[in-house]
């Protein structure tokens, strides 16, 4: 314990990229995530969002939780935990997964990387050590290690990312398909690159040992200088992910293990993630409850909305009629989308009503006075932002 700084115990941890991020965080806009000092934004949230949509930008994902799960039973153990069939994840492939309680309520979502036949990496937003230990119960040959602090990672997102990685010398990176993993020698170590991200755009995540973190940052920023590279923070991430209709904890879902009130958590069906549940695979946590829910239908359904006008429907209730007599849901995230030029939102709506007429009651402030409007919502079936380049292999240079 450092007693020369009496507040040392209360200070946030610094990411291996902090020495570089600090210089560029001109607005001193820091927040926290999992104990790490973490940028809300660096210069301007909307500018950073546009770097993701127009050029390229890096997001420090060191605070994201990372676990190595290895051993002969690793696959079986993960398969018992998550709803997707882990056996189907090929070598050097990544899969987006969710895991639930026995009641089928969602604990968290994350990605599983298959690094060998008996070795995986699981990443997720919140610490998961205790649940992983519970899930490993009864499996003989499985080791779970929290490697969060042993791996530094940057999410590198935007239309020019592939061009920058090519310039960085990552040979053949353009042949990596979405969810592929590649390894490259890097300053005597290994740089792992996955074609993954949380922005709905072309992008990669770069994984490196912390000792080489600054080398990675410097090389990447040098290569990216002519391609508009810029760090981005939580605010821009949240804008991009909403356009891609990706869910966020504490926005779209309340983690089941942190939910006090009955059914104030969600199920994957309610979050429109039914496609992640594989009932054909061996037993997994929540299977029976989810089968039952599949039969009777989810109570709520997460719905994508295009809303009239330009006032974000943050915190709005959704009604069945313009007179607001029948409340049928609530907005979880909302914003004006600069790329799509639409007033977009995700909302939890009682399933029987999703195909009927939908109205949002929007409150907004104008020079200290509150105003409200009731406006029509249109249900969208596809994510708001789906550029072809996000799926193209090889991706375009910009």
């Amino acid at each position: 314990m450092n007693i020369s700084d009496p507040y040392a115990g209360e200070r946030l941890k610094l990411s291996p990229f902090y020495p570089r991020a600090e210089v560029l965080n001109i607005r001193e806009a820091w927040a926290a995530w999992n104990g790490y000092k973490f940028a809300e934004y660096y210069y301007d949230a909307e500018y950073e969002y546009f770097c993701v949509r127009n050029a390229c930008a890096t997001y420090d994902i060191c605070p994201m939780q990372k676990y190595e799960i290895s051993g002969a039973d690793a696959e079986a153990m993960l398969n018992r935990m998550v709803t997707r069939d882990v056996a189907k994840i090929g070598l050097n492939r990544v899969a987006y997964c969710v895991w639930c309680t026995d009641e089928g309520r969602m604990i968290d979502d994350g990605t599983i990387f298959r690094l060998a036949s008996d070795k995986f990496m699981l990443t997720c937003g919140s610490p998961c050590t205790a649940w992983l230990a519970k899930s490993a119960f009864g499996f003989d040959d499985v080791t779970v290690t929290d490697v969060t602090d042993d791996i530094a990672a940057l999410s590198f997102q935007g239309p020019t990312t592939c061009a920058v990685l090519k310039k960085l010398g990552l040979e053949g990176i353009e042949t990596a398909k979405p969810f592929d993993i590649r390894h490259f020698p890097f300053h005597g170590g290994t740089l792992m690159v996955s074609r993954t991200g949380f922005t709905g755009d072309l992008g990669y995540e770069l994984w490196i040992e912390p000792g080489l973190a600054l080398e990675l940052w410097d090389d990447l920023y040098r290569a990216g200088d002519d391609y508009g590279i810029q760090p981005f923070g939580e605010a821009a991430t949240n804008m991009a992910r909403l356009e891609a209709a990706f869910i966020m904890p504490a926005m779209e879902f309340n983690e089941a293990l942190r939910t006090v009130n009955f059914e104030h958590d969600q199920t994957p069906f309610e979050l429109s993630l039914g496609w992640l549940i594989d009932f054909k695979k061996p037993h997994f946590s929540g299977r029976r409850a989810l089968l039952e829910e599949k039969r009777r239908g989810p109570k709520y359904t997460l719905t994508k909305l295009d809303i009239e006008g330009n006032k974000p429907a943050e915190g709005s209730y959704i009604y069945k009629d313009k007179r607001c007599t029948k409340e049928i849901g609530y907005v979880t995230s909302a914003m004006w989308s600069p790329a799509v030029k639409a007033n977009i939102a995700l909302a939890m709506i009682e399933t029987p009503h999703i195909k009927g007429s939908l109205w949002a009651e929007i409150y907004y402030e104008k020079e200290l006075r509150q105003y409200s409007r009731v406006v029509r919502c249109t249900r969208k079936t596809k994510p708001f932002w789906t550029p072809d380049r996000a799926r193209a292999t090889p991706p375009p240079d910009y």
Partner: protein
Amino acid sequence: MSNYDAIIIGAGHNGLTNAAYLAKAGLNVVVLEKNDYIGGAAVTREIHEGWKYSSCSYVCSMMRQAIHRDLDLARHGLILVPYLGTVNFGDRDERLFSYHDEEAAHLELKRHSRHDADAMHRFQTDLTRYSQLIRKTLMRTPPDPSSFKPRDIMELLFLARQFWKLGEKEIYEYVRFFTMSAAEYLEDYFENDLIKAAMASPGIIGTALGVYSPGSSYILLHHVMGDVDGSIGAWGLARGGMGAISKAIAGSVAESGGEIRTNAGVEKVLVENRKAVGVVLENGDELRANIVVSNLDAKRTFTKVMDKHDLPDGIYEKASNFKIRGSSGKVNIALSGMPKFTGVPENRYLARGGQGFTGSLETMERAYDCWKHGRWSDDPFVESVIPSAWDPTVAPPGQHWMSNFVQYCPPQLADGPWTPQKRDAFGESVISKIERYSPGFRDLIVHMEVRTPHEIENEVGLTEGNIFQGELTIDQLFFNRPFPGYGQYRMPVRNMYMCGSSTHPGGGVSSVCGANAAREILLDLRRTNTVPEDDFYDE
């Protein structure tokens, strides 16, 4: 001979917007373009390999969200990216940085004048109030003040209501504002000359007026009333250049089954029994249609492609006298690297904004004096942007292109016609101005495209190279645009309409003129309206 419901002359962004809405309403439309490319003055052209210039218009703020959204231009590939700070260069070696962040912007103003830093709040507030009123009229057809039609009376009442909401004092201020010069208006707020000059510069852009000419304050407002995503006064760049806007609208036209023909210049509008019935193309082909919509400026429409004898008395004269003086040139420069400016830190964000070679109010006024005497300015006002600092698609990586908007440059020179030599000499005046603040700039030049009003008129078709299709002075605005009595997009010949910037609300890449005209056409045809109302509902 073929038959269409509507022929639109000119594939500029307003013509395309008009076509998009008419096609959406089920009309069989064709857009005729004289050039082999579409876009008019909202165009991206690869004149030098690897560099894509926005040859004419270069930034965007007026584009109405309602239209962008309604025509689904994002799906058709359009993305507008706001740009950040600007640097204004003063005559006495001062630098005024406009930072994107409010706090930083305030501190910078304070460095120049404590007084002006405070006054900026009042200035922005007043300007926002004025813009809010004008913004409400953008996507509405101006009322005819002499008409007793219920619709015109209702519209006049709407305007009166908006006016009264301002309060008595503001009504007087508003009227005064419309008739003042930008420089005089700014006197009331600021003391620092560079701040005044920087704020006054939007008041002369595209206009044959000086900063001290009455009426220039409205033009200032015209340039700050746009927005990017609701941030009023902000400007943005279209990813892929301004042509991306036209391309996206053309995508919408095609999706609704509309036809666009390039290399199809219109020789003449056919009029029979005082009704427009079609056009004759330059190649002699005749196309017939129920209506004809001209996206050409008013002067060109009535004095070039229409027969004087087909027009009611007085229209030809009105069109001939339509004030459409060219005042600006454009110099597009391909650069082998990012230029460095003396006294400007290598701030990556400032570099992603613009440069204003502003000088001072006096320099700007003297620049205007040259124009009056039929010369380009000896010491021009130049507004520059380096789009490639933002947009990875318009120049090779590590290389750049710089857009330079120049005032003043006359359409006719006192010493005889424009020649390539004179054009290059004009370009040289711009390079030497920039080089004064960026030593070594000249060495970075890979290619240049110099456009005087002469080139703009001949290539784009804008009379005298006037970027607004007619000056934005109060005698030519609102229900007076283009002429009194013809402010509702219908022209003196039946079945003939106008949809370009010569109509309300005037110049700028806004798509509003085209959309408003489409609304009127659909009304006359008794078709369901496809044109949205503006989606501001409270600002």
